[in-house]
């Protein structure tokens, strides 16, 4: 999903600990909101509504854990 919203196929193999806002992925408002929308459509989890601080977006791993805990 991350590779899809950023249009960067090299992100397909990033490790779970990769920071989403950091230099590696560099998730910005556009890609970030598209990612959250895809997550909502695919898993039915509205991250933005449930996570005020968006702490779940710290790393790929934290986001996955957040979603898994709510499916």
């Amino acid at each position, binding site marked *: 999903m991350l590779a899809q919203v*950023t*249009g*960067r196929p090299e992100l397909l193999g990033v490790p779970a600990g990769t920071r989403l*806002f950091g230099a590696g992925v*560099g*998730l*910005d*408002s*556009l*890609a*970030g*909101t*598209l990612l*959250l*929308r895809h997550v909502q*459509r695919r898993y039915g989890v509205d991250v*933005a*509504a449930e996570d*005020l*601080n*968006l*702490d779940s*977006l710290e790393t790929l791993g934290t986001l996955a854990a957040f979603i898994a805990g709510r499916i």
Partner: protein
Amino acid sequence: MIKCVVWDIDNTLLTGVYLESGADLPGADPALAGVLRELSARGLLSAIASRNPPAAAAYVQQLTGADFAAVECGWGSKAEAVARIAAELSLAPDAIAFVDDDMLERAEVAAALPDVLVLTPEEAAEAPGWPEFSPAVITAEARRRSQLYAERRRRQAAANEFGGSRDDFLRHAGTQLTIAPAGSDDLPRLHELSVRTHQLNSAGEPVTQADLARLLDSPGDTVITVRLADDFGDDGLVGAAITTGNGRSSRPDARVPAQRLVVTVPLIMMSCRALGRGALDALLAWLCRSAAADGAAELRVPCLVTERNVPMRLALAAAGLRAEAGGVAPDGRAIFARPLTGELPPLADWVTIE
């Protein structure tokens, strides 16, 4: 030449959301209903791409009297819906215009189909005057707008072809971002921005020109503007922030109440045309750094928490701001804050401070 306009329904052709309205269905947007009639009179087609049941399209048809050449009512991606409509009507993407109030839908369609003319509902209301829609009379302003769209499409096509990160592309495109204090000449554009920005707006309400003028003169407040340009074109003034400095914050729960210098940002706003180009990140980075340089200990951004301005919240989170204890207040706002010590958000090398 545009041969078909693809319309979204919720908050675009209709003044509300079809499925959220219960028995009280929203009416048609009068300006766009007029555009539908005008386009039809010129022999242009209209189609629907909406995340709604087919009954919604039938309802719009009934309200406006419009005949839709294609209807894509489903729950998938808008980009795919537009592509299917193009195929169904045997039209190339550059003969299609797409109208949607949601900037993320617009961004998704623009990225997937760079040749499609992507418009906000406000732009669609004016679009019949543009060369692409072959009106009887084309004004100079309409020609200029049309040129702006061509620039946008070229930029999007180049971004799609580019193989590196977003920042690499922005640098490659010669992006120039200028942060400068506002002048009185900026007031009309600033007021217009406050009215038009919804998804990238922290306050959620417009500011009058009179209030902006007062802020310009007030010593404790600053109005900062953001201008954006690159090799593809100049977008001018795309965003702004209002800051109130020298506020003193006391902590009643601490053993020794500490008076600290705090900079509060009552408003941050950015045009959706600056989305994906690092403008909001640059503004937030600069707000942090400038406040720190002035000796402030904390930056505070009250932000309306709605479904619509999730992009703003993402930018705040990326800049290291977190909601204060207490969460969302009854007025729908939460205070996002961060200390100004330690690592501050980076400022890109194409940003100029004046």
